[in-house]
């Protein structure tokens, strides 16, 4: 029945057309141009080529022997909706091509329609595991343009929150990494301890995540009256918890075998690809913006920058564990020296008046109305402000036209930049190593896709 066959052919063609993935698709090596292959290897424009290996897959001879497999966006260990196209030679990863955009919500564009006050609620939803870092970065950026002086208590509260958030973010990282490598109990332990921090956040800001607590001008509210005992409890109990994780994982021979020597990157590769945070530090470079470009008075706190030597999955894990301990050290110091005073700037143009003043003063009412309808105006100009988030260097590049809304916002998201490193980390490893590598780069897709 030739007609039948023809119809089936047309249907198949239509099927292909409907499901064709265009440029996102990973094709066989013989069909792919050399430039694209170079991009896949991480030779992004501007990257120093000498750093990257230019020997493409010499040990894999034949295209027919390999299999192209799609991993994600629905896959248990792609941390949300990361998608990877892998070319596998048996179980060895030959090529890898990350595909992103499945969580794209246009937040950078949305920022242009929100006032500077509302902007904090927007950025806090990007890296949803470290909302405080995003808010802090936003607040510092706007304050830089406003040239606003922040009271010391507000700064100390910000440091407290950012460091607690660093701990909670690293906890999720350890938990999911444990899960991905099969240590299912780590998953629960990590989330259990994180909950203690999140309940403290809830007490302070009313929300567990996406707090909108750190705002341009200070913080949204003063700390609750019994915050000291809550934080003291966290500080006291956490070192013991971290010892537990180390007992469960660090000394475990299977864990060590699975992580040591897996997914290594060198410092040069990190420079070329823009990898920051625990990945860079695990490779051996002590680069931490809290120390190297201090903000919020970090230079007055006593803590160490944790580094590794091999830049492999194990070192990244160790760096995160070490950073949790250092963060506890910082939190302890905040606890000891929390200054008294205002929790937000008293600049009437930026900070709304207290509720009680609205009943008494006409000016207060006007200020309140203006701030919450029109918003405050920020001087024209452009500014780049970077801080150290749990995942690396997070920065806002903000252009203001002098109105009450940003003209343009670009977020330099650490998760996005760190995904560049997937190809050099994964190639030559096994499929199981690929999972370990994803977990160790700790990507948050909200941060990647913005």
């Amino acid at each position, binding site marked *: 029945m030739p007609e039948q066959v023809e119809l089936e052919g047309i249907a198949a063609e239509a099927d292909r057309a409907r499901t064709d993935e265009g440029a996102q698709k990973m094709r066989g090596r013989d069909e792919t141009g050399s430039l694209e292959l170079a991009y896949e290897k991480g030779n992004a424009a501007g990257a120093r080529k000498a750093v990257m290996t230019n020997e493409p897959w010499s040990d894999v001879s034949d295209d027919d022997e390999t299999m192209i497999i799609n991993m994600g966006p629905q896959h248990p260990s792609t941390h949300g909706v990361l998608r990877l196209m892998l070319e*596998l030679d048996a179980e060895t990863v030959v090529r890898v091509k990350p595909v992103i955009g499945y969580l794209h919500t246009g937040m950078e564009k949305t920022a242009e329609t929100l006032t500077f006050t509302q902007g904090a609620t927007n950025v806090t939803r990007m890296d949803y595991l470290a909302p405080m870092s995003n808010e802090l970065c936003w607040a510092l950026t706007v304050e830089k343009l406003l040239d606003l002086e922040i009271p010391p208590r507000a700064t100390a509260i910000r440091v407290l929150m950012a460091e607690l958030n660093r701990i909670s973010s690293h906890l999720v990282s350890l938990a999911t990494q444990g899960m991905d*490598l*099969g240590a299912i109990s780590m998953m629960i332990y990590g989330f259990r301890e994180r909950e203690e921090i999140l309940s403290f956040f809830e007490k302070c800001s009313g929300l567990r995540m996406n707090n909108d607590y750190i705002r341009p001008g200070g913080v949204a509210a003063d700390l609750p009256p019994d915050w000291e005992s809550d934080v003291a409890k966290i500080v006291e109990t956490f070192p013991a918890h971290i010892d537990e994780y180390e007992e469960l994982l660090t000394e475990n021979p299977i864990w060590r075998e699975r992580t040591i020597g897996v997914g290594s990157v060198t410092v040069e590769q990190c420079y070329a690809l823009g990898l920051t945070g625990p990945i860079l530090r695990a490779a051996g470079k002590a680069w931490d913006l809290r120390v190297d470009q201090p903000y919020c008075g970090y230079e007055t706190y006593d803590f160490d920058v944790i580094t590794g030597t091999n830049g492999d999955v194990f070192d990244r894990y160790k760096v995160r564990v070490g950073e949790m301990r250092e963060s506890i050290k910082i939190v302890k110091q905040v606890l000891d020296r929390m200054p008294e005073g205002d929790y937000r700037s008293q600049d009437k143009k930026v900070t709304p008046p207290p509720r009680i003043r609205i009943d008494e003063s006409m000016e207060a009412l006007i200020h309140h109305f203006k701030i919450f309808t029109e918003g405050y105006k920020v001087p024209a100009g452009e500014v780049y402000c970077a801080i150290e988030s749990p995942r690396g260097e997070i920065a806002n590049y903000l252009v203001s036209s002098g109105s009450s809304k940003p003209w343009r916002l670009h977020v330099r998201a650490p998760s996005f930049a760190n995904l560049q490193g997937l190809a050099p980390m994964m190639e030559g490893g096994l499929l199981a*190593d690929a999972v370990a590598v994803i977990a160790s780069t700790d990507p948050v897709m909200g941060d990647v896709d913005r």
Partner: protein
Amino acid sequence: MTGPHDGWWVLGSALKVVILFAATLILVMALVYIERKVVAFMQVRIGPNQAGPKGILQTLADGIKLFFKEPVTPRAVDRPIYILAPLLSLIPMFLVVAIIPFGNSITINGREIFLQGTDLNIGILFFLAMSSIGVYGITLAGWASGSKYPLIGGIRASAQMISYETCMGLALIPAVMTTGTLSMRGMVEAQSGTWLGFVPRWTGLVQVIPMLAFFICAIAETNRPPFDLVEAETELVGGFHTEYSGIRFAIFYLAEFANMFTISAIAVTVFLGGWNGPGFSFLPWLWPLLWFFAKTGVLVFIFMWIRASLPRFRYDQLMSLGWKRLIPVLLVWLLLSSGIQAWINEASNHVAGG
């Protein structure tokens, strides 16, 4: 065999089969519940607590749900093999139950009935044969699914399980030499009594390394963590059963837990003295049964414990553990052990002869 093969014998055997089948099913359901509770306890969670008192009916509810769920068959599957594969992994597990001696014997109406499905004179070989067939179920499931992740799972399964089958065989040979029989019942009887009046004559106390090796192989053979590469949820989504749903998936699940129980029971029978243990004259048939289930329960608990605490091996590490460590050690042990055994036999012959 007990007594003459008359009508009563046939009826008794049929009854045994029915009881064993039903008991295994119930046991498996209990195991699923117990595992969830044990792992929940280790992870500071509550675990199932809604269906029935303390959630004990949770497995039943899950089973009913899976049973009535539509088994989706993807277009690319090799249909006959796809349907056959779950059965191939379940049926051998149930057949192994038949040779496990659960207890000593019970006397009803003057007849002595052994608490064992049947006592094959090649019992342990039958077990090895059945577990080899179980490999087919998983490998074919991966192959017939017509999808890439199950394929990788299937390939892993064939390599992993064949390697560990070898280990398992090597671990069982010393035990067979010590007890001098292949029959499961014979093995248990050879382990009765004590040394020096208080040390039980368990094979595992002599053949320590084969016992540990057997247990490692048992975990690999049942695809339990840390050797669950075949399903490795975080790598292969669901591995060989990615494309299975509904009752067919449930059968794989059932097979895994049945396998966990039978292999623990085999380990108890071969290495830990089976149903041997102190008994009392009151209800003499009950104590061996209790001892057997207590010992098996401990092993099953260790299975669960390991699952809750260890990360997963990587494929190449698993193979090197099997081929480069376990097998050489077992081969050396086999030589030593057989040498010693030969020497003992010689000596005893000499004594007997002189």
